[in-house]
C-alpha cells in the first residue's frame, strides 16, 4: 500500500526537463527522474502540473506534496519550504542572437535587455550582476516565453539553466537565431546548491525517504541510465 503523493511541477513546457506532448503526457528528464524516485521510495505518485508562479503556495496549501520542478535550493526558499538533497546541478548560461558578439559578463551585457524566468535564481542573479550594471532585466512567467522573445528580437539575451538553453539552441527555432554566449560566473549564494525536491517544512520522514531514494538510484545506476538518453555529460555536477 503505497502512499499517494502529488508531484508538482510547472505547467509550462521546460524542455528537456518537462514538456507535454499532444496526447497530454508529460515527458522529459525530470519526469523520468520522478518515476525512478517514486518507484524507489515506493510512493504512489501523481503528477500535477501547476502554475510556476504559484508553485510554493500550492505546496504549502497542500495542493501538491512535493516539487520536482528544477527548483534550486536557496536560502530564501529555505525560509518557507524544505528541500531534499540536490538531484542535479548545472551551470548557468547566457544565450543571444547570432551575429552579435558579447560576453556573459556584466560589462558585456551592459545596455542590453536580458530575459529571465520570474522567481528563478536566474532572476536574482541577473538583477544583481547585470541589472545593477546597466542591463534591463525583463521577467517572464515561463522560460519558453523568454526564449520566444529572444527569437522574436524583443530581447538581446536570455539567462537560464545551461541545459534548458541547450535544448532551445538545438530546436529548429533556436538553431536559426541564437547561440550560447557563455556561462556566468558562479555565485552559490544566489544560484544555490543545485536543484532539490521541494517539501513542506516538518515532513522529515518524507524527506528522509526521498534522500534515500536519490542516493539509491545514483548508486544502482538507474540515474545514469535515463540521463544518458538526454545528456552527453554528467548532469549531477560535482
Amino acid at each position, binding site marked *: 500500500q503505497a502512499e499517494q503523493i502529488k508531484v508538482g511541477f510547472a505547467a509550462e513546457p521546460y524542455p528537456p526537463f518537462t514538456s507535454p506532448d499532444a496526447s497530454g503526457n508529460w515527458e522529459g528528464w525530470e519526469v523520468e527522474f520522478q518515476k525512478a524516485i517514486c518507484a524507489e521510495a515506493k510512493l504512489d505518485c501523481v503528477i500535477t502540473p501547476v502554475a510556476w508562479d504559484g508553485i510554493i503556495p500550492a505546496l504549502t496549501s497542500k495542493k501538491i506534496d512535493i516539487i520536482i520542478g528544477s527548483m534550486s535550493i536557496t536560502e*530564501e526558499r529555505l525560509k518557507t*519550504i524544505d528541500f531534499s538533497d540536490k538531484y542535479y546541478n548545472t551551470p548557468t548560461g547566457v544565450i543571444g542572437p547570432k551575429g552579435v558578439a558579447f560576453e556573459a559578463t556584466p560589462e558585456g551585457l551592459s545596455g542590453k535587455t536580458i530575459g529571465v524566468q520570474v*522567481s528563478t535564481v536566474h532572476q536574482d542573479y541577473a538583477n544583481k550582476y547585470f541589472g545593477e550594471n546597466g542591463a534591463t532585466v525583463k*521577467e*517572464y*512567467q515561463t522560460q519558453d516565453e523568454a526564449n520566444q522573445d529572444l527569437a522574436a*528580437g524583443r530581447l538581446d539575451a536570455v539567462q537560464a539553466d545551461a541545459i534548458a538553453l541547450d535544448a532551445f539552441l538545438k530546436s529548429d527555432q533556436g538553431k536559426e537565431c541564437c547561440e550560447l554566449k557563455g556561462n556566468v560566473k558562479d555565485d552559490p549564494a544566489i544560484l544555490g546548491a543545485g536543484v532539490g525536491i521541494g517539501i513542506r517544512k516538518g515532513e522529515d520522514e518524507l524527506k528522509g525517504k526521498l534522500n534515500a531514494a536519490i542516493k539509491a538510484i545514483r548508486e544502482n545506476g538507474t540515474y545514469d541510465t535515463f540521463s544518458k538518453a538526454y545528456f552527453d555529460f554528467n548532469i549531477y555536477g560535482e
Partner: protein
Amino acid sequence: MTIPPPDETTHAMAFTPEDLPTAASFFQPHRILLMIIFAGIVLSAAWFMRWDWLPQYLPKLGWGIVVTLAMLFSTAFLGFLFAVPLGLVQVTGPWPLKLLASGFCTVIRGTPLLLQLWLLYYGLGSLFPQFPEIRNSFLWPYLRESWPYGVAALTISFAAYEGEVMRGAFAGVPAGELEAGRAFGMSRWTVFRHIWLPRAIHRALPTLNGETVLQLKSTPLVATITVIDVYAVISKVRQDTYLTYEPLLLLALIYMCLTGILVILFRKLENRIPTRGA
C-alpha cells in the same frame, strides 16, 4: 446574432457610484459592531502576518500603480474614441459597415481578453520580426516592447464593449430631439455634434462608469505579457518572499481603493450633469 446588451450586466458586475455608502449610513448599531469586528480582523492581520517586506517594495508598488492607471486611462480613452464610430455605424451605417462593426463587437466580446492579449503578443508579435521591413522600421523599438500590445488589446476590448453601449445610447436618443435639431435648420453634422453625440454620451455615462471600473479590473492581465503593473509587482513580491496571502490581500486592498477612487471621481462627474429619476 448578437450578444445581449451589456448595460445591465455592467451594473451587476461593476461597483458603481450608486453603490457608495453615505457617511450617515455607518452610524447604525449593528454597523458599528461589524466595523469593530472588521477592524479587529485588520489589526490581527497586520499583527500576525508578515509585512516586513513592504517598505522595500513601496517604490515599486507606487510605480506599478502608476502603470496600472496609465494603462486604464489610455485604453479607456482610446477605446472610447473607437467606440463612438462603432456604435454610430451600427445604428445608421450602410449594411456592410454595420455588419463589420457588429461582427467585430461579437468576436471581441465572445472571446476571453487573456486569449486576445496572448494572440496579439505571442501570435502577432512573433510574426513581426520575420519581416525585415518591420524590423528596420521606426516602429520596431515600440513593437519590441510589450506595453503596446497590452494597450492594443485593452483598447480593442474596451471599444467592443463600449461600442455596444454606444449603439444602445445612440439608438436611445429620442427621435424628436434629433428632429427638433433638423427643424431648426441644423446640418447633419451639427445635429450629430451638438445633439446626438452629447446626448448619447450623456445617456451612456452611467454604463461608461461601470465599464471603466471593469476595465480597471482587466488591467492586471497585461502582467502576463511582462508589463510591470501593480499586479506584476505583487507577483514579484510573492515569488521573492513565498508568502501566499499577504501580498494578494494587499493587492486586493489596492484595487479596492483604486476602484473606490475611480467611482468617487465618476460620482463627481455624473453630478455635473443632473438627470432625473432612475
